């Protein structure tokens, strides 16, 4: 048991990606063991229903399994890609459930595997994620809510302004200030 756990903890994603592309069933199991809880946590945060979240997790992994052939195994970061696919599945669901228009958002484009090559750092690192979470929690409530509506509900600034009943300019100002504060909090790493 220990060697298996250590193997999962120490191997990089490159080897896993190669085996996924070879349609190795065990690789899919490892992918789930590595990222399943993270994907479930994100989707549950977005849709707020366990049953729906599990359906969407299943859909996410199936989509990745079917599209992994187009991924750059040497330079790609499968974890961030998986999260992007998961987020898009959840946003699709929220839009369908809320009868919100699809709008001109770039969701499908945002999960293009090519966008997840050559990332300079690992954004899913333990301490990086914790720092981002802490920085988010420190934001004033309206600013945090605007950022969360954009990320966790896939809302444009126009939609956020409508939801919060604020002028569009105010929402844009909140979000800009939020990103600046997070940049200061994190010592860079946030374009603002």
């Amino acid at each position, binding site marked *: 048991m220990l060697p298996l756990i250590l193997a999962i903890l*120490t191997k990089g994603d490159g080897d896993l990606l190669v085996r996924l592309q070879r349609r190795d069933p065990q690789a899919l199991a490892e992918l789930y063991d590595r990222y399943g809880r993270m994907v479930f946590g994100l989707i549950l945060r977005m849709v707020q229903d366990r049953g729906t979240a599990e359906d969407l*997790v299943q859909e996410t992994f*199936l989509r990745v399994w079917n599209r992994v052939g187009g991924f750059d195994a040497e330079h790609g970061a499968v974890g961030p890609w998986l999260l992007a696919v998961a987020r898009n599945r959840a946003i699709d669901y929220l839009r369908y459930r809320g009868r919100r228009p699809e709008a*001109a958002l770039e969701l499908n484009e945002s999960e293009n595997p090519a966008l997840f090559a050559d990332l300079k750092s690992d*954004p899913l690192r333990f*301490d990086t994620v914790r720092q981002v979470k802490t920085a988010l929690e420190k934001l004033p409530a309206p600013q945090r809510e605007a950022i969360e509506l954009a990320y966790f509900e896939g809302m444009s600034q126009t939609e956020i302004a409508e939801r919060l009943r604020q002028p569009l300019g105010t929402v844009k100002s909140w979000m800009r200030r939020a990103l600046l504060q997070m940049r200061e909090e994190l010592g860079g790493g946030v374009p603002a």
Partner: protein
Amino acid sequence: MTCDELRPDYVLYAMGVLEDPEKTELRAHLDRGCETCVAGIREAREFSSSVGASADGPEPSRQLRNRVLAVAGTVSQPNWHWRTAWQAAAVVALLAIGVIVYQNQETTAAIAEARQQLKQSNLEAASLRSALALLQTPETREVTFGQGAPAPPRGRIFFNPASILLIASNLPAPPAGKAYEMWIIRGGRPTPAGLFASTAQGTALHVYTPTDFVLATDTVAVTLEIAAGVDAPTSTPVIAVQL
């Protein structure tokens, strides 16, 4: 629009929620290979991923793993929690000992071996529990080592004010009579930080809880020493990581 004017929109673009006219402007920069905007969007994408990963929540059901694997046409396997797995392993080992004693068909050596295995399992379980506790501590930070070298030991060190966790791969099993010894180095002075061995697969996990403050440590190193351990390193470190 200039890159500076577009910079605040990088994160919204990476999240897929940027609207016109900024979206069209930014896309034009990207289409012509604007290095500033390409780098900014990459950074924004990393940030966006971190936001997504920050949404932690409860465990999914155990059936979900099987559902995921089944849909992909793969063989389903039970998703054991580590603790459960170790408890089960301990129960199996105890039962094995009981059967051996009851039937009186095995030698004392076999019983001793089973006991040794159980002891080893318990030690490993304790080590894993310590590792999990450390990983769940908010102050824990992480350093990666060995990336990029041809065939190095590589892995990660997690540390917080109370503990240090080393997880390594590509670390050959020590020869008979030898063990790996971890050192914490402060101001150039090494202090022993425990003995450990790697598995046949070259993986290792070692947790050290010092009596004083971890964050005063400059460097964590690992050397190959005699199995009983030594007071000061006698060989070149196989791992040396600055914290």
